[in-house]
């Protein structure tokens, strides 16, 4: 009996038997028919899952005969691992889908039967090994879909349905013709039999047969541009049905393609082109789309064609062993995420993307949306991430670099429109309509959970220490569950977790990773602690922050490029979401994400190229790359530079740094930016010293670094917004590090490490001071402040120390960085760059002075009379940073010696230390002596002034005790010279900082949008035109591949 229940054929038998009976049963007992339907659909889902389990555990693939007669004389089916996987996926989706559809199905026996038979039809498409039988199942699926489409009765659905019928019936007509020709040529209908007889499929008839067969299946997969009919259905069908079409029917078609691949060898290249074009075109057109369902339609088509692309490419490469992870991962990802999103859009009854505003008021829905979108975009820990990784590695190893590029570009575009949607949901807006019923949400939640589980499993299958590498995500999820607590306890919990984590992790790290471990985790802890000054509700903030900080650990501990990339993506995701929490961050978050993802994809491409050469994903093996060293280095550097905000790709930076929450800005600029520097270090250490092309890359890098430094500083001086100024300043400072790294000398790398530490200290300090100011003043426009030194002396002191440390004026830490860097540049013989570095560091004085002057000096506004200094929670971290800066100023060796030792393990040491005296090849510097001399020299006039004024009763004067234009001014607004402070500089050099990069990227965006417009002109909405495209597709395929003999 149990055995009978486990017969895979039951998938067909039970669905049909129940399907036929339901209308009858409904007449006597609707409740019974519902119960039977539920039972059946659960059975249909459980059975293949069990089989999957058995097969994974070593059961043999099932060959199922019918009619008691052996194939090829009868029809046979197969349930192997891949079939079981697809069937289980599809049936799971239809189970959840039926649950979601609920009311639409219930009470309509006819609809329930059709739904059952639809998923049965897909199962059949997957399992059958007979070509004509495949055609039957295709038709069953198609007609069931036609029936379900009619559940919603309006003009759009009906016309879309009719177009769908025309298209699919044409496709199956061609398929049928192809099948018949195959039968004529091979004398069998059995797919395995045909494979044996494949030699017969040749000549003019073979060509036509193959092209018809391919066309039939390919059109089912909705290739661009012959896919308008599919999109119309996605847009107008009931969401539950659209989801089934998108995931179920497509899965069947995909599997059909998989089955016929061996029969159509000559068409593989054409298939690749078709799938690639469709993937790219759909994603480009998606950019223009502002209705969610059609958007999901484009995404669906893109994902399915990506699956097809991966399938065919891996077949061509004979890497079938990679298919389970790649195809399985991508499929499951698409299945659950896409269905979940369709359901969500239906449950919320919002179609226009614009209508999703205000979803942030409901954290649960927002979380669901975010997780599903993240999954769809291929972010970790979801299965798509692992699949994409493996795919890129395999394709790179196979030398298919241009396909890697296409896949990455397409994925990026997809992320753009998906996260634009998410951005809308994060924007403030109207309150939600009443929240959807739990019954509708539950399947969606289950889909999310399924995705998480699948992601975990996929990571396992890659042989990772899954719990450990996914720790950031899990910790984040765990913290979400205590999100109800008040803010400060949550902050303390985060601190405790991260502190313990750092305590465990940092001591284990060595060398460079140890240095960055201290910086990233130590700095992260400090900034987190500073964030405790905020007591307002910050939903999810600490959960994400924990994720971010733990990902630092992942980044540092990564031994393989996979682990590195994973941690990197975690960083991207968590920082993006944290950024989204900024009150007015919405317009900037998308740019942040796009550039971050672009950076990540560049890294991925770089790692892929490295893997292609070394067949290893160990980071240590990056150094073994030889021929492709320059290319790998270039890609990695481009990726890290994008994340670091180098000139040209910096456009995301100011908005992001400025609009993030104030304490998170400090984290972003001071700490997170160092992750990119770490990456730069990593790539340069592994690949920068290989000579040849690498030298060119490093030379270019030096220019990029210094131009970034210069333009960062130059743009900073024109900002009125305090945080934007700091943002540009950060950009510039990173430029120096880049340039120092580019030298590829011991001295230069010491400089880079020193600059990084120093930047962490002073930029963290500056952003924290800024946070305090903004908290008190409620403003970011600097010219609306002024004279705050009297109210906020400690903050002033902090900023003073920070700007001296930044400016590079001795005796504070900044000079050490400048000295090391300039020495390194000069030693390298990069004189022009050195000149530019001088210029850039001089320009920095301008914004530094402006910042401290405009905020703290000059005339105080009347409304600011009673402001107090920043809260203690902010001041203590500031003072800590001040203390560290001062300590390192007195003893620069405490910093330089360890860094020099670390770098000496990579390069011969050129920086020589005699006690406190440092010697480079050109010059020398004794930091300890300098600060003593300066201290002493400072004492002289100070004492002098003290002595002199002892005899005088110095009186503190009132604010307006000045004479200005022969008047005593009365109003601080007119007297505080602050707005457009460097207008003359603008006149002199302003032409350099016209927003060219922004214009360029806007141009790119506009261009892609108009590409989208251009590409979608094919979608006229006319069913006849669509039929014509299909016809043209068929003939094009035929003539492109072979044509008449």
């Amino acid at each position, binding site marked *: 009996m149990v055995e009978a229940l486990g017969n895979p054929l039951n998938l067909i038998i039970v669905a049909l038997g129940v399907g036929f009976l339901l209308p009858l049963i409904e007449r006597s007992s609707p409740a019974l028919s519902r119960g039977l339907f539920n039972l059946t659909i659960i059975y249909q889902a459980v059975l293949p899952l069990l089989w999957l389990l058995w097969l994974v555990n070593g059961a043999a693939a099932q060959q199922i005969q019918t009619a008691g007669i052996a194939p090829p004389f009868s029809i046979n089916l197969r349930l192997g691992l891949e079939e079981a996987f697809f069937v289980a996926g599809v049936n799971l989706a239809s189970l959840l889908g039926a649950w979601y559809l609920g009311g639409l199905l219930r009470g309509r026996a006819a609809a329930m039967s059709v739904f059952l038979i639809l998923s049965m039809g897909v199962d059949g498409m997957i399992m059958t090994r007979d070509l004509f039988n495949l055609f039957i199942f295709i038709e069953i699926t*198609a*007609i069931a879909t036609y*029936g379900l489409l*009619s559940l919603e009765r*309006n003009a759009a659905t009906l016309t879309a*349905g*009719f177009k769908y019928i025309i298209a699919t019936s044409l496709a199956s*007509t061609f398929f049928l013709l192809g099948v018949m020709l195959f039968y004529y040529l091979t004398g069998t209908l059995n797919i395995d039999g045909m494979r044996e007889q494949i030699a017969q499929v040749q000549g003019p008839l073979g060509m036509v047969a193959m092209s018809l067969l391919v066309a039939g299946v390919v059109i089912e997969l909705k290739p661009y541009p012959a896919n308008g009919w599919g999109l119309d259905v996605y847009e107008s069908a009931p969401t539950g049905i659209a989801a089934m079409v998108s995931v179920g029917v497509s899965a069947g078609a995909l599997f059909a393609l998989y089955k016929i691949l061996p029969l159509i060898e000559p068409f593989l290249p054409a298939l690749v082109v078709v799938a690639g074009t469709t993937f790219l075109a759909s994603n480009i057109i998606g950019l223009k789309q502002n209705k969610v369902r059609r958007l999901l339609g484009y995404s669906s088509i893109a994902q399915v064609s990506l699956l097809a692309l991966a399938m065919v490419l891996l077949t061509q490469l004979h890497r079938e062993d990679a298919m389970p992870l790649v195809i399985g991962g991508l499929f499951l990802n698409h299945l659950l995420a896409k269905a979940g999103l369709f359901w969500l859009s239906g449950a919320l009854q919002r179609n226009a993307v614009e209508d999703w505003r205000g979803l942030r008021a409901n954290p649960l829905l927002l979380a669901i949306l975010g997780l599903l979108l993240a999954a769809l975009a291929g972010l970790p820990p979801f299965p798509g991430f692992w699949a994409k990784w493996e795919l890129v590695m395999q394709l790179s190893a196979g030398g298919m670099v241009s396909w890697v590029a296409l896949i990455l570009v397409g994925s990026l575009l997809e992320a753009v429109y998906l996260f634009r949607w998410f951005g809308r949901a994060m924007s403030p807006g109207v309150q939600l309509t009443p929240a959807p019923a739990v019954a509708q949400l539950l399947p969606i939640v289950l889909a999310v959970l399924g995705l998480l589980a699948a992601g975990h499993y996929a990571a396992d299958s890659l042989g990772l220490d899954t719990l450990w590498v996914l720790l950031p995500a899990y910790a984040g999820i765990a913290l979400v569950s205590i999100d109800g607590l008040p803010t400060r306890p949550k902050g303390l919990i985060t601190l405790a977790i991260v502190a313990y984590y750092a305590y465990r992790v940092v001591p284990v790290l060595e060398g460079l990773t140890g240095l960055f471990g201290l910086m990233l985790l130590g700095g992260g802890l400090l900034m987190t602690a500073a964030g405790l000054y905020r007591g307002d509700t910050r939903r999810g903030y600490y959960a994400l922050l924990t994720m971010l900080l733990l990902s630092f650990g992942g980044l540092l501990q990564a031994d393989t490029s996979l682990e590195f990339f994973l941690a990197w993506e975690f960083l991207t995701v968590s920082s993006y979401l944290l950024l989204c929490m900024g009150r007015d961050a919405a317009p900037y978050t998308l740019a942040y994400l796009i550039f971050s993802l672009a950076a990540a994809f560049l890294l991925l491409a770089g790692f892929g190229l490295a893997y292609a050469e070394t067949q290893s994903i160990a980071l240590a093996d990056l150094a073994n790359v030889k021929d492709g060293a320059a290319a790998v280095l270039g890609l990695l550097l481009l990726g890290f530079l994008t994340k670091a905000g180098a000139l040209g790709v910096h456009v995301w930076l100011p908005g992001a740094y400025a609009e993030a929450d104030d304490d998170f800005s400090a984290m972003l600029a001071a700490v997170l930016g160092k992750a990119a520097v770490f990456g730069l270090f990593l790539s340069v250490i592994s690949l920068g010293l290989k000579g040849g092309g690498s030298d060119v890359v490093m030379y270019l890098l030096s220019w990029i670094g210094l131009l970034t430094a210069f333009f960062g500083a130059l743009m900073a001086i024109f900002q009125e917004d305090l945080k934007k100024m700091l943002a540009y300043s950060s950009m510039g400072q990173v430029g120096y590090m880049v340039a120092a790294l580019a030298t590829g000398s011991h001295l230069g790398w010491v400089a880079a490490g020193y600059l990084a530490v120093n930047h962490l200290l002073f930029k963290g300090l500056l952003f924290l001071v800024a946070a305090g100011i903004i908290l008190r003043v409620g403003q970011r426009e600097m010219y609306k402040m002024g004279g705050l030194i009297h109210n906020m002396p400690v903050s002033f002191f902090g900023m003073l120390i920070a700007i001296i440390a930044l400016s590079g004026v001795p005796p504070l830490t900044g000079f050490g960085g400048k000295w090391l860097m300039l020495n390194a540049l000069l030693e390298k013989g990069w004189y022009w760059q050195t000149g530019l570095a001088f210029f850039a560091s001089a320009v920095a004085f301008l914004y530094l002075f402006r910042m401290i002057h405009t905020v703290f000096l000059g005339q105080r506004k009347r409304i600011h009379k009673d402001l107090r200094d920043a809260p203690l929670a902010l001041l203590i971290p500031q003072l800590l940073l001040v203390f560290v800066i001062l300590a390192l100023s007195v003893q620069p060796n405490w910093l330089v010696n360890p860094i020099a030792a670390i770098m000496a393990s990579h390069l011969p040491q050129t920086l020589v230390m005699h006690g406190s005296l440092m010697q480079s090849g050109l010059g020398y510097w004794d930091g300890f002596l300098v600060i003593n001399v300066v201290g002493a020299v400072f004492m002289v006039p100070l004492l002098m002034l003290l002595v002199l004024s002892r005899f005088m009763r110095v009186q503190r004067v009132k604010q307006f005790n000045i004479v200005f234009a022969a008047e005593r001014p009365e109003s601080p607004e007119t007297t505080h010279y602050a707005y457009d402070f460097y207008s003359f500089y603008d006149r002199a050099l302003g032409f350099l900082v016209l927003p060219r990069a922004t214009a360029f990227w806007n141009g790119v965006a506009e261009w892609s949008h108009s590409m989208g417009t251009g590409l979608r002109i094919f979608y006229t909405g*006319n069913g006849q035109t669509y039929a014509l495209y299909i016809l043209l597709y068929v003939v094009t395929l035929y003539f492109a591949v072979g044509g008449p003999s």
Partner: protein
Amino acid sequence: MIELPLSTITLGTGFGLLLIGLWGMLVRKNIIRMVIGFSLIDTGIHMIMVSLGYIRGGTAPIIDAAVDRATALTAVVDPVPSALVLTAIVIGLGITAVMLAYAVQIHTHKKTLSIDDCTDSKW
């Protein structure tokens, strides 16, 4: 003049019907006419299917008094395409019925049967 084999003629006719049907489907604006076009395509396909299964000089694959088992192997046409065509006909019928039902509903909702007016969703 070369004498064409029987099945070549039916094959050609099938292709011809298919093309005519396609023409109807692509050019006629009236949905009902498009459905008729589809029916023609279907019929064309069926003719092609049967033709492909034809064996020179064969008869219906029914083994009874007319064709005994001994000679059957050389006397009958391939039964498989005949079986398949039966299935295909039924499926074609099913699709045609659904198409017509859609046409009826479209007419109810839009008061038109012109395919050019059925562009509710695009881009």
